């Protein structure tokens, strides 16, 4: 069985992000990490491998060259193989293009199951999973919190739905979108880190596996950022003073009602 995991390297939560070029571009401080939610996907693939033995875990990312570091983390955790699809200057704001490239890779490399995290924490799109599944004509299940060992060409999973939880059975091949709570991602061991440092991670050009790159250019993108803005900061906090907690509570309610008008 072959499990494909799609991951993204994203700006670290603590990275400083500056708007430049009159609102037309962003400058991100050089602090990147493997996307938080993708760690759960890698971990889950490794756990299935541990239970089923005969499983290959392949981790793939579409992004600039620096993304290779995120793939090394995946290898250090225990993935068998990693592949970077080099975005070069093709990088766009349109998730359809990313999905097209990743699904093209999946088609060429083959898979029984695809795992991905519920969203990237940089663009916060949460779109790639269902898009890739649609392009591959396979079922997807979102917000998965438990994956049982696949058996007889099927897999049972638990997922969150509005106001509850559901257990479903899905036929393979399928795409599962995992979220926090499914597992505790392992911290790579030093032997894993050593292995990852030496690992040969191929860097592919999308054109080499039959993607029509002309349909993946910035000009072809159906959505694009027109400008960036800083969120308007709030004025400094107003501390509610009073001799007792009761008095402060009373004054707070008064300002919420009369000044902020939210009560």
């Amino acid at each position, binding site marked *: 069985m072959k499990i494909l995991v799609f991951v993204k390297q994203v700006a670290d*939560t*603590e990275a400083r*992000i500056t708007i430049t070029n009159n609102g037309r571009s962003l400058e991100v401080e050089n602090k990147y990490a493997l996307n*938080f*939610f993708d760690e759960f996907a890698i971990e889950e693939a490794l756990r299935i491998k541990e239970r089923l033995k005969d499983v290959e875990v392949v981790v793939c990312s579409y992004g600039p060259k620096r993304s290779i570091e995120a793939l090394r983390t995946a290898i250090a955790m225990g993935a068998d193989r990693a592949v970077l699809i080099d975005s070069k200057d093709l990088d766009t*704001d*349109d*998730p*359809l293009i990313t999905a097209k490239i990743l699904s093209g890779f999946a088609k060429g490399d083959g898979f029984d199951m695809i795992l991905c995290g519920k969203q990237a*924490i*940089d*663009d*916060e799109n*949460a779109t*790639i999973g*269902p*898009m*890739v599944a*649609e*392009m591959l004509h396979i*079922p*997807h299940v*979102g917000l998965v919190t438990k994956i049982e060992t696949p058996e007889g060409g099927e897999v049972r999973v638990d997922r*969150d*739905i*509005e*106001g509850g*939880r*559901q257990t*479903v*059975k*899905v*036929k393979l091949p*399928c795409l599962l979108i995992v979220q*926090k709570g499914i597992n505790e991602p392992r911290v790579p061991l030093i032997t894993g880190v050593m292995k990852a440092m030496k690992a040969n991670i191929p860097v592919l050009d999308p054109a080499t596996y039959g993607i029509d790159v002309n349909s993946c250019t910035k000009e072809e*993108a*159906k*959505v*694009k*950022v*027109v*400008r*960036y*803005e800083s*969120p308007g900061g*709030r004025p400094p*906090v*107003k*501390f*509610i003073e009073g001799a007792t*907690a*009761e008095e*402060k*509570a009373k004054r*707070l*309610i008064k300002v*919420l009602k009369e000044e*902020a008008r*939210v*009560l």
Partner: protein
Amino acid sequence: MAKDIFVFIEGKDEGVRKSSIELLSKAKGITKNHNSTTYGILIGPKSEEMVDTVRPYPDKLIVVRGDGLDEYRWDTYTPILERLIKTYRPFLFLGPSTITGKDLFPRLAARLGAAYISDATGIEFEGEEALVKKAMFGGKIISWMGINEKDCALVTFRPNSFSIDRPSGMAEVIEEMGDGKSEEAITVLETKKTMEKKVDLQEADFIICGGRGMKGPEQFGIIEEIASLMEGRVGASRAVVDAKWRDYEDQIGKSGKTVSPKLYIGCGVSGALHHTMGMDTSKVIVAINKDPNAPIFQYADYGIVDDLFDVLPALKEELKKLKEQAG
């Protein structure tokens, strides 16, 4: 092309999700300016009451009926919406950025090859061009996205992005039939509803959130009481969820939910970056904390520096009085 707008109506329990009504209000404001039509799209209504609740908001309401359509599934809803979009050719299809919206819209966008912007918080027009506002990097950056496409574009919006206008009419109802036969690839074995009849965290107007300063799970009783008094929800910081004082579904922040209620009250929440990323778009933020240097105060509009367990009972009494006055 006429600038008609489709709005996806999402049900909740037996009724209609508030965020769908917000989107209908916003859509109608746009189509009024373009002399075009706002269509509500309601698939598999659970009751006629649901149809009646929605009718005052759009210009026209398309109701799709068929066996097996009362529960959302992407495999049954996607082909229905694909057909409706190809028939009516709206220029925008709006939906809520809820669990359902996030499952359905990207799948539909890929099927149609349509432009799609997710998790937006606003939309404005510069001439004929729609510009969609979206938060990135946990709210550190706002981006305005343009749509480079003639055909229908899909946009999902966070709940609480728009206010609800007073309805002004009664939509004509267009009845359509839909096929509810699902793909054999996915079989539902069991469904457990845990939160029925409760407002969703992301849709709540009022959120009172507990942090590590709450000291223990047994202390959440008072904020539960305040939340139910205000018909809102209890939220939790990551520390609280990791300590298993509250369930993950209550978690607000980078690894939890993003919320923007009218009023957020943080109780004993320190205000770490991963938490504020999930709540700093709230309209009004109140922080209650013993420590005057807690980072949460940099994000708050109003602050109280005092012992939580003295402030919360007093706050509850004041809110109770307010509710009684309002009758």
